[in-house]
């Protein structure tokens, strides 16, 4: 039996109550203990940011690393100059934290990409497999938060992407590409499927935001029947098959749970300031990559603004993405191919333009959140938006000194507006600890963390 990759702090903290149902929906048996501790915790209390607004958390994952010489800002602390790649964040400089010298030790080795994608938010080493014993050996940071706070919104979390899960297994390196297509893991063997069609995301948000008590009740009746069927069925099965049925049981329960809460809207702790309007509905998956990305980022902003979820992960591309970036002036080629620049100046130049484009999109989301007023401040003031990649230099596949930026003020908890330079090889897991703290779901330890990240929290 593997040890849980995180433990929950016992300090006097506000945390949502955890029902038996949530527990079943959560990770596998390996996590049973921390959950039981959490269940005995303090009574329900909304996690609050400034002016009583909730804190939101998003993670934007970029494949293939960055041009290492054009990423790191010069200067430290509050007195720093953005690098060429980070320059699109100029007007947001006071709202971001650039983090230098963090690394993800557990994702060293294995191979170049898959291990560093699934391990990005779990800080664990995935099991090498073509599929049969798939296991990330942990839970991703966003899901640790979702499992403890998710009941306060229609969706505990939202998983979004651009490309569907990659086809096939990579026999070359001996990994299933499932690992390269997921950063959110609700349990060691449960990667969370992503929605890639902005219209479908919108429809989900829209429906969840306007529950109809009648249809919710009917749906619950159907789900109850399913739960009965599944419960009967599982008794006749062997252990491995039972685990599959349990997986179904738990996802059906989580839906039932959501419908139940939705049918009693007065139970929601925080009333969303802004209702979701149907006019924002996207048409479908646009052909242009840039347009597709923008629409998905819009969905994150809308989901946060309407408080339909407080947690979101987004993948610009799957691991090893070879998305053609020729739509950018001066770029001719695929993302992964160019990331293997071999110090060729022309390739490096193009690679950097691709990195910079990603930063521009990140800036777009931050600006969008900044323009959404909430109380005295903005949604951005109440958010934490992490942007980064699982490797530094795409030509070297090394998880040292990862490119990471944290945007937003996390409800006043984040000391934004700095370039923080840590001792070499400071665990990225320390950042997870700090983010979970700011989110209101603190943990004492997360994977290889050695504490929280100094200077991040106010």
């Amino acid at each position, binding site marked *: 039996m593997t040890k849980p990759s995180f433990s929950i702090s016992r300090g006097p903290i506000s945390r949502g109550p955890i029902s038996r149902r949530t527990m079943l929906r959560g990770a596998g048996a390996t996590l049973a203990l921390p959950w039981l501790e959490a269940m005995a915790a303090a009574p329900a209390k909304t996690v609050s940011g400034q002016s009583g607004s909730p804190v939101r958390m998003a993670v934007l994952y970029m494949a293939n690393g960055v041009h290492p010489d054009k990423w790191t800002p010069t200067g430290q602390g509050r007195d720093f100059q953005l690098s060429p790649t980070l320059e699109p964040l100029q007007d947001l400089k006071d709202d971001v934290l650039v983090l230098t010298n963090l690394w993800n030790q557990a994702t060293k080795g294995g191979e170049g990409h898959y291990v560093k994608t699934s391990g990005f938010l779990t800080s664990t080493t995935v099991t090498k497999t073509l599929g049969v014993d798939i296991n990330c050996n942990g839970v991703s940071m966003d899901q640790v938060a979702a499992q403890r706070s998710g009941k306060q919104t229609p969706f505990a979390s939202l998983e979004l992407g651009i490309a569907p899960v990659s086809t096939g297994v990579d026999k070359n390196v001996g990994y299933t590409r499932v690992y390269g297509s997921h950063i959110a893991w609700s349990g060691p063997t449960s990667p969370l499927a992503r929605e890639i069609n902005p219209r*479908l995301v919108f429809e989900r948000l829209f429906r969840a935001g306007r529950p109809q008590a009648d249809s919710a009740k009917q749906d619950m009746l159907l789900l109850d029947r399913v739960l009965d069927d599944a419960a009967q069925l599982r008794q006749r099965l062997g252990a491995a098959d039972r685990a599959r049925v349990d997986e179904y049981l738990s996802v059906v329960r989580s839906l039932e749970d959501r419908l139940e809460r939705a049918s009693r809207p007065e139970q929601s702790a925080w009333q969303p300031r802004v209702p979701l309007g149907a006019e924002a509905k996207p048409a479908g998956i646009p052909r242009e990559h840039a347009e597709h990305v923008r629409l998905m980022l819009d969905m994150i902003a809308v989901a946060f603004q309407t408080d339909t979820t407080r947690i979101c992960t987004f993948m610009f591309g799957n691991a090893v993405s070879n998305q053609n970036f020729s739509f950018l002036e001066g770029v001719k080629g695929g993302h992964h191919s160019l990331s293997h620049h071999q110090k060729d100046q022309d390739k490096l130049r193009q690679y950097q333009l691709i990195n910079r484009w990603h930063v521009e999109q990140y800036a777009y989301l931050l600006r969008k959140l900044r323009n959404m007023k909430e109380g005295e401040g903005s949604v951005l003031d109440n958010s934490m938006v992490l942007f980064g990649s699982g490797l530094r230099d795409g030509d070297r596949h090394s998880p040292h000194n990862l490119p990471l930026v944290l945007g937003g003020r996390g409800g006043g908890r984040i000391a934004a507006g700095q370039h923080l330079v840590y001792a070499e090889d400071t665990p990225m897991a320390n950042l997870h600890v700090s983010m979970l703290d700011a989110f209101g779901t603190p943990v004492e330890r997360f994977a290889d963390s050695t504490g929280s990240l100094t200077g991040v929290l106010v």
Partner: protein
Amino acid sequence: MSFGAGVTPFVPLLLAFAAMPSIAEENFSFPEAQAVLKTYCSNCHAGKTAVAGFDLEKFGTMESILEAPRKWNRALLRVRDGEMPPKGAPAPPMEQREKFVAWIEHSLRTAACADGISAGPAPIRRLNRNEYSATMRDLLNIHFNAGQGLPADGAGGEGFDNAAETLFLSPIHAEKYLEAAKQALDYGAKDPRSRARFFIAEPNENMSPEQAARKIIEKFLPRAFRRPVSLEDVERHLELFRAAQTRGETFNDSVLFALQGILISPHFLFRLEEPNPSPEPRLVSGYALATRLAYFLWGSMPDDVLFDLAAQGKLREPETLTGQVVRMLKDAKAREFAESFVEQWLGTRELGRDIKPDAKLFPEYYDAEIRSAMRYEPILFFQEILAQNHSLLNLLDSKFTISNNKLQRHYGLEVGKLRQQPVRVELPEGSHRGGLLGMAAVLAVSSYPQRTSPVLRGKWVLEAILGTPPPPPPPNVPELEEAHGGAVPKTLRERLMQHRENPTCAACHNRIDPLGFGLENYDVLGRWRTEDGGKPIDSKGELPDGTMFEGPKELKAVLLERKDLFIRNLTAKMFGYALGRGLTMEDYCTVEQVVGQLEKNEYSAHTLIQEIVLSVPFRYQAGMARPTSEEKAP
């Protein structure tokens, strides 16, 4: 009739192990292998302090190795992938490494087969997105993609998205299933053709609403669950009808409500088989077999013919089974199978997704008709081989392909009558086409967006065709192409030549690159060319064993000489697809058996499918698992 009743327990015959042709012609002897272990491994892996508890002193005999197959399988993978010996430690040269790996693999598989062919695991699994859509289509007779809102499925095992191990469930699935069932039923209830399929009774003066609903459910439920159902099953779903009636719903809506309940039941969404409680393997029930067969060859539920044969107990007769294979392969629904298998086997599913030819350089790809013809060519070609029972060697080289006018023109071939739909076309002499290697989709998927790559194409041939993927490049070396240093060479070939001067790179690239150069006459979109950027194409290649060839025609002849590798690879892929899981060591006994039958039957397509369907793992369920001696050991 109860599910799974009347099954005769039957122990498969112990099949004599057929000598397995080894990949490495000169296999190691045990002492030779021991010498490698002693030189490169025993520094760390010996004695009480052996790293990872892997103590070579405990493996002094062949028998002791064969008693720990799992450990040695792990060791084999780590050595094969270059993870062992670790970085910095002395490592055997490539050739010795490969022989060593072949030796362990051969020994383990031989030993696994000596005990006879076992049924292997048959884990329950949910329907994948395509299977879900096709099943809804056939169950409700709707022409609407009910599964379009579901997330795509990842792949495991042999590289297919029907592998039980990677068919996960996320909260989003529950939501989508509930919604899709409602949508599909509403759609079906409004379409008279579809409605007739499941609304088989209406209340009238002789029939109460509940009696009518019962009739409907009694007919619908066994088809949805793909097995006979009990009275209790019917009763349970009738309750939903009653609940809807109680809250004042119409007869129509109440029935739909009950049916929606059926369509989100695990008995519908999962492929379930009655567990085998005995320790011995047994034939699966006729219904389970019909289901295995239908999802293999149609990617959908069984039809009435299969259900009837299952009910009559006939499906388990080998002659009936092989007869059904032929019928099913000729059915239009075999398209689902061809599409799913071929696109994942060849990797062409990524075309238009992660792999997109550059729009500025290759605008032709953005013509919808060409793109679709490109995409369907290998699929329809494979379907034709299956339906017509052609030789599988057509995949390596053939005298026909399946294309339409635009694709013909794209290939520089003469165009006959005006047609948009792809049809079978006999290829003239000197067409430069025939077999998978002349197909645009294959050539595009093994290229960069802007240009062709002999390295990518060579790697593609090694992986998809020969089933001998090269090991990953050592860590921290540049990606496959264009290493620099010294004078800058001019052509891609010169740069690759220089690359191969580095012995670390050469070990694999001597094998990869020549195969790709043989295909250089095809551009990114598979069009024939004799020059590139004003320079003549040089399509000569020399394999490490000294075999020389020039151009695709000679390359195909070289591959046909290695047809045993190709056929073994195709068989393993097909078997993994049929079983919906990764192959175990024991499964390779079946692979070898099927390969043997193919050799005797002119590589006929039906032989491949029939032998797989008749195999022990396809027709049997393993007994209740007992831990092996290795698992019991601490």
